[in-house]
C-alpha cells in the first residue's frame, strides 16, 4: 500500500573501471515508475484499500447561493450499513480552511456559496449504501440572488459573497466582492498614445477551463492509535495540505501523517484541498479507515478551475511597428472561494503585456468573488488568459499596420536586459525573437492530407473526423503564430523553498544514495530527474527514491514549473553537502596516503573519489564502509518582492519562461469545425535535464492549450450559477484524433541563477498554443473571434 519506493536501476552497477555513472543529468533516463504504471501495479490514490474500510460520500449543494434553513439527517442515520452522517455541527475544530485565505468551509454552515459545495458527509460499508444515505439527507435552502459577473458583484446593492472579510487583501480592495486588485503603472500611457500612429482595441473572453486530470480526487484516511490519522492522498503539495488539515481536525501537525499516493495528473487542480479533511473527519469519527473517491461528475465540483476572464486591451504602435503603449484591464472570476485568486491576479497583471518591450503601460487586474464555481490554479496560472488576448491584439495590430505578424512580434520582442512593466529587469536569456524564427522556419505540413489514392477522402484527416461531415468541402487552411511569457516559481515575496534529505551508504559493497523529498510526482517525471541529479552529484549508480511524505520538510508545490528548479536545486544542494562530508571522511581516512587528498578539487564519479585530473583515489565504498552520511537541507531561490499595490512595481518574479507556437489548422468554414493539422513549438528550457520528459511536457502543455482553443469550457448558467456540463460527455478534452503532430524544438540557454541553468518548462507551452490556434482559425476564416473556446456557432454566425 502506497509503497512507491523505487530503486532506480539504470545500466549496470558501477565497477572501478567505469568513471561516469549512467543516467545522470542531460540523459533521457526512463521513468523509475514506468514498469509499475504499465503493469497496473502503481498504487494511485483511488487504488488504496484497507481491511474493514468504509466509503465516504459527500452531499453537495444543488443550488449556488442560499441560506441553509435546516438539515435533517435522521432518515439517513437509520440505514443499515451507515456508520456516520455528519454536518457542520459535527466538525471537530476549525470550520474553514484555504491556501491563501481561510474562507472555505469544511462543510457549509449558514450559507452555500456555489453549486456543488459540500454540505453533509456519509460513511457506509458500500459506496451504493453511502450514496443512498446521502440521498436521504434533507436540506432546506432559502435561495439568494446570485453574483455571477463584475456587474452583479460590484452593483451598489450587490450581495456580499463573504461578509466580514478579514484577509490580507481586504484592507486595500475597492469592494468586498473583489478578492484582490493589482494595478501596474509605468511611464505615461496616455502621453505615449499620442505618439501612436495606429491604435487597436479589443475585448476578449476566456472560458472556464477544467484541469480534467484523469484520476479523480480520492484517498484513504486511516485512524491511528495515537488519536491521529494516516492519510494517503494525491496532492500537489503535502505540507500545504497538512497546514490546512490539522487545524480542521483539531490535531497537531505531527499527528496527521501524510503519504503521497499515486497521482493521476494534477495541472493545478490538486493544489487545493479536496477530500483530505472530509475523509479524515469520517475516519476519526468512526474509528475505521475511510476511502473516498469522487466520480467524474463530482470531480468537476471537487476542485477549482481556471479563472474565466474578460479582458480589455488597447495597443498602440508607430507606423514602423514599434509598440508605443499598452492599456489593459483584466477581470478574473474567482468564484465563491478565494483559492489562489490573489496570486493569479498578480500574474495576470504582471505578465499582461506579454514578452514585448513597452515602456508605457497602464494595467489593472482584479479577481472577483462570485457565486460561480471557485477558480484557482491551473497550468499557466493567470498568464494564459492574458496571452490569448495580447496575442490577438498583436495580430490585429499587424493587420492594421500591414505587417507580417511574426515580424511585428520580433520587432518588439523582449530580450535579456528588457525591463518588465513591473520594473524588473529580465536578467537571463529571453530568446523571444529566436523562438518565433524557429517555428516560422519549419516546413509546412503538406496540404490536403485527407486525399487518398483513389478511395475518396480519409475523413480521419478532415475537420469532423470520424463523423463524416466533409470530404474536403468548405475546408480552408490557416496558419497562426503566438508567443508567451510565464513566470517560474512562486512570486511576490513568497518564501519559496524546497527540502531534500539525501543519504549515502554502502549496501552490498556498493555506494547507494537515497533521495527523500516531499515532492509530488504528478506525472511530470520529477522522480526520474531526482535520481539523475543524485547520480551526477554523488557519482553513484544506484539511487533510491523514498516515497514522498511529511516526514521530511516541505518541497513546495508541484506547480508554477518550479519543481526541477526548486526540489532539483534542493537535491543538488544537499548532495553537495553530502559530497563534502564524504570527502571529509575520505581525507581523514586516507589523506595521509596520497597528497591529492589535500587537493580541494575532488569529485565523486563512477562510485569513486577522483581528482579533477581524473585520478581515482578510493571507492566511495571504501571511504564510507559502514558509515552513512545523511543531510536534510532547505534550499531557496533568490528572494522576490511584493508588487506595490498602487504602481505594481517590484522584482516580483524569480525567472521567466518563453515558448512560441505555430498552428496550422483546417477549418470547415460551412460547419464551423476545426482540425488542427500541426502545432509546432519552440521553447527555451534552459537545460534539458531529461530531454524525453522535456518534450513530453511541452507536447502535453500544448495540447491543453489546444483544448481550450476549440472545445473546452465549463458552462455556467448565468441565471442560476449552476454548472451545466459536469461530465466527460459535455466537457470535451482533445482525443488523439483532435491532437496533431507537435514538433518540438527546444533551446538550452542556461539561466545563470538556476541550478544547472534550468528553466521551468511545464507551463509556457500552455500559453501560446491557444492564441496560435485562434490566430490560425482567424486566418482561415477572416473572423475576429474574441472568445475561447471557438465554437462552431462563432464560425458560422449561428450564436
Amino acid at each position, binding site marked *: 500500500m502506497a*509503497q512507491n*519506493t*523505487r*530503486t532506480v*536501476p539504470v545500466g549496470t552497477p558501477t565497477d572501478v573501471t567505469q568513471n561516469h555513472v549512467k543516467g545522470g543529468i542531460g540523459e*533521457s533516463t*526512463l*521513468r*523509475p*515508475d*514506468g*514498469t*509499475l*504504471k*504499465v*503493469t*497496473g*501495479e*502503481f498504487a*494511485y490514490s*483511488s*487504488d488504496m*484499500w484497507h481491511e474493514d474500510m468504509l466509503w465516504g460520500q459527500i452531499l453537495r449543494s444543488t443550488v449556488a447561493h442560499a441560506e441553509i434553513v435546516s438539515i435533517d439527517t435522521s432518515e439517513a442515520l437509520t440505514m443499515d450499513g451507515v456508520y456516520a452522517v455528519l454536518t457542520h455541527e459535527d466538525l471537530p475544530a476549525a470550520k474553514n480552511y484555504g491556501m491563501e485565505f481561510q474562507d472555505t468551509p469544511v462543510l457549509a454552515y449558514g450559507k452555500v456559496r456555489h453549486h456543488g459545495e459540500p454540505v453533509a458527509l456519509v460513511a457506509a460499508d*458500500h459506496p*451504493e449504501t453511502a450514496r443512498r444515505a446521502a440521498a436521504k439527507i434533507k436540506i432546506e435552502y432559502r435561495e439568494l440572488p446570485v453574483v455571477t459577473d463584475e456587474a452583479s458583484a460590484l452593483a451598489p446593492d450587490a450581495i456580499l459573497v463573504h461578509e466580514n472579510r478579514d484577509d490580507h487583501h481586504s484592507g486595500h480592495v475597492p469592494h468586498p466582492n473583489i478578492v484582490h486588485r493589482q494595478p501596474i503603472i509605468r511611464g505615461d500611457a496616455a502621453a505615449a498614445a499620442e505618439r501612436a500612429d495606429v491604435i487597436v482595441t479589443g475585448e476578449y473572453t476566456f472560458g472556464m477551463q477544467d*484541469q*480534467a*486530470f*484523469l*484520476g*479523480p480526487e480520492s484517498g484513504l484516511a486511516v485512524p491511528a492509535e495515537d488519536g491521529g490519522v494516516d492519510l494517503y492522498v494525491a496532492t500537489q503539495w503535502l505540507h500545504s495540505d497538512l497546514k490546512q488539515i490539522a487545524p480542521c481536525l483539531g490535531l497537531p501537525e505531527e499527528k496527521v501523517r501524510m503519504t503521497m499516493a*499515486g*497521482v*493521476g*495528473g494534477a495541472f493545478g487542480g490538486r493544489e487545493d484541498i479536496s477530500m483530505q479533511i472530509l475523509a479524515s473527519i469520517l475516519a476519526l469519527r468512526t474509528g475505521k479507515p475511510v476511502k473516498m473517491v469522487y*466520480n*467524474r461528475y463530482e470531480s468537476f465540483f471537487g476542485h477549482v478551475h481556471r479563472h474565466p476572464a474578460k479582458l480589455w486591451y488597447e495597443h498602440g504602435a508607430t507606423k514602423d511597428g514599434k509598440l508605443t503603449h499598452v492599456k489593459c484591464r483584466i477581470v478574473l472570476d474567482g468564484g465563491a472561494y478565494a483559492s489562489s485568486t490573489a496570486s493569479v491576479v498578480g500574474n495576470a497583471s504582471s505578465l499582461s503585456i506579454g514578452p514585448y518591450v513597452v515602456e508605457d503601460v497602464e494595467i489593472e487586474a482584479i479577481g472577483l468573488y462570485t457565486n460561480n464555481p471557485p477558480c484557482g490554479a491551473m497550468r499557466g496560472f493567470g498568464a494564459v488568459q492574458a496571452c490569448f488576448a495580447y496575442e490577438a491584439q498583436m495580430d490585429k495590430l499587424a493587420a492594421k499596420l500591414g505587417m507580417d505578424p511574426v515580424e511585428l512580434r520580433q520587432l518588439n520582442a523582449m530580450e535579456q536586459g528588457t525591463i518588465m512593466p513591473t520594473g524588473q529587469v529580465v536578467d537571463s536569456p529571453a530568446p523571444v525573437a529566436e523562438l518565433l524564427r524557429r517555428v516560422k522556419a519549419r516546413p509546412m505540413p503538406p496540404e490536403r492530407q485527407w486525399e487518398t489514392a483513389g478511395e475518396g477522402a*480519409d475523413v*480521419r484527416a478532415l475537420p469532423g473526423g*470520424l463523423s463524416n461531415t466533409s470530404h474536403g468541402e468548405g475546408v480552408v487552411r490557416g496558419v497562426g503564430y503566438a508567443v508567451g511569457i510565464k513566470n517560474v516559481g512562486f512570486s511576490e515575496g513568497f518564501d519559496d523553498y524546497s527540502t531534500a534529505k539525501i543519504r549515502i551508504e554502502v549496501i552490498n559493497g556498493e555506494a547507494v544514495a537515497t533521495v527523500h523529498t516531499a515532492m509530488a510526482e504528478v*506525472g*511530470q*517525471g520529477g522522480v526520474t530527474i531526482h535520481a539523475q541529479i543524485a547520480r551526477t552529484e554523488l557519482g553513484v549508480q544506484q539511487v533510491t527514491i523514498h516515497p514522498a511524505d511529511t516526514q521530511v520538510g516541505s518541497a513546495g508545490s508541484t506547480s508554477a514549473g518550479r519543481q526541477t528548479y526548486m526540489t532539483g536545486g534542493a537535491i543538488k544542494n544537499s548532495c553537495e553537502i553530502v559530497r563534502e562530508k564524504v570527502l571529509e571522511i575520505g581525507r581523514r581516512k586516507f589523506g595521509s596516503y596520497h597528497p591529492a587528498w589535500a587537493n580541494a578539487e575532488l569529485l565523486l564519479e563512477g562510485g569513486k573519489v577522483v581528482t579533477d585530473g581524473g585520478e581515482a583515489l578510493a571507492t566511495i565504498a571504501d571511504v564510507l564502509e559502514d558509515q552513512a552520511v545523511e543531510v536534510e537541507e532547505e534550499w531557496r531561490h533568490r528572494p522576490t518582492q511584493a508588487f506595490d499595490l498602487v504602481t505594481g512595481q517590484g522584482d516580483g518574479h524569480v525567472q521567466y519562461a518563453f515558448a512560441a507556437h505555430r498552428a496550422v489548422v483546417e477549418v470547415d468554414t460551412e460547419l464551423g469545425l476545426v482540425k488542427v493539422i500541426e502545432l509546432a513549438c519552440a521553447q527555451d528550457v534552459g537545460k534539458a535535464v531529461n530531454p524525453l*520528459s522535456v*518534450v*513530453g511536457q511541452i*507536447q*502535453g*502543455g500544448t*495540447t491543453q492549450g489546444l483544448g481550450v482553443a476549440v472545445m473546452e469550457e465549463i458552462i455556467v448558467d448565468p441565471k442560476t450559477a449552476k454548472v451545466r456540463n459536469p*461530465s*466527460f*460527455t459535455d466537457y470535451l*478534452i482533445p*482525443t*488523439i*484524433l483532435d*491532437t496533431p*503532430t*507537435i514538433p518540438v524544438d527546444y533551446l538550452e540557454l542556461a539561466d545563470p541563477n538556476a541550478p544547472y541553468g534550468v528553466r521551468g518548462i511545464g507551463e509556457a507551452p500552455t500559453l501560446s498554443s491557444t492564441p496560435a490556434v485562434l490566430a490560425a482559425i482567424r486566418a482561415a476564416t477572416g473572423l475576429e473571434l474574441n472568445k475561447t473556446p471557438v465554437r462552431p456557432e462563432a464560425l458560422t454566425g449561428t450564436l
Partner: protein
Amino acid sequence: MRVNFTVNGRPQEADDVWEGESLLYVLRERLGLPGSKNACEQGECGSCTVRLDGVPVCSCLVAAGQVEGREVVTVEGLAEYAKEREAHGGCASGACGTSVDAAKRWEAKPAQDSQTGEGVELSPIQQAFIDAGAVQCGFCTPGLLVAADEMLERNPSPTDADIREALSGNLCRCTGYEKILDAVRLAAARQERQGEAV
C-alpha cells in the same frame, strides 16, 4: 449476487455483488485488480478498457452480472497474454484472439518485485510505452495498453491514422498523445523485426 468468471486466465468468484455494480468495480474492489482505472464511469475516457471475450470494452459499462462465465483480460494480465499469443504464432496469420483453451493454459503471475517492478516481464506494447516516454501520470496507460495491444493483434502494421482511430476512445491528459503514437509505432516495428527474425 454471486458472479463467476475468468480473469487473466484464472477462475474468479465474486460474492455479495450488488446488482448495479460494474465489472470495473468488481475487478478493482473485489478481486484486487485495480489496474483498470476509473476515470469517468460513462464510457468517455477508455481508462477502464479490458478485453471481454477478446473484445476491448469499457468495463465501467459492463454490469457485473453480464460477465458470468466469460473471459476477461486486464492490464495485469497483458504481459502473459502477449506471451501466450507469441507462443501461438502471434496474429500475423489473421487468426486473432486467444482461444478459450489457450486462455485457460496461462495465468497472470505476480511481479517478482512489486516494489520496483524490476525483473518483470513486459509485453512489447508495455515496454514500448516506457521506452517512448508515453507514460506520464499513467492513469490512462492501462486502458491505452489494452486497446493498443488489441489493435496490433488485428493490424500489425498500422498507419498513423489507424492508430489514432483505434485509440480515439482513450483520453490522455498529460502527453498530448505524440509519444503514445511513438510507442505504438515502436511496438509495431519491434514486432515486425521479431517476425522477420523468426
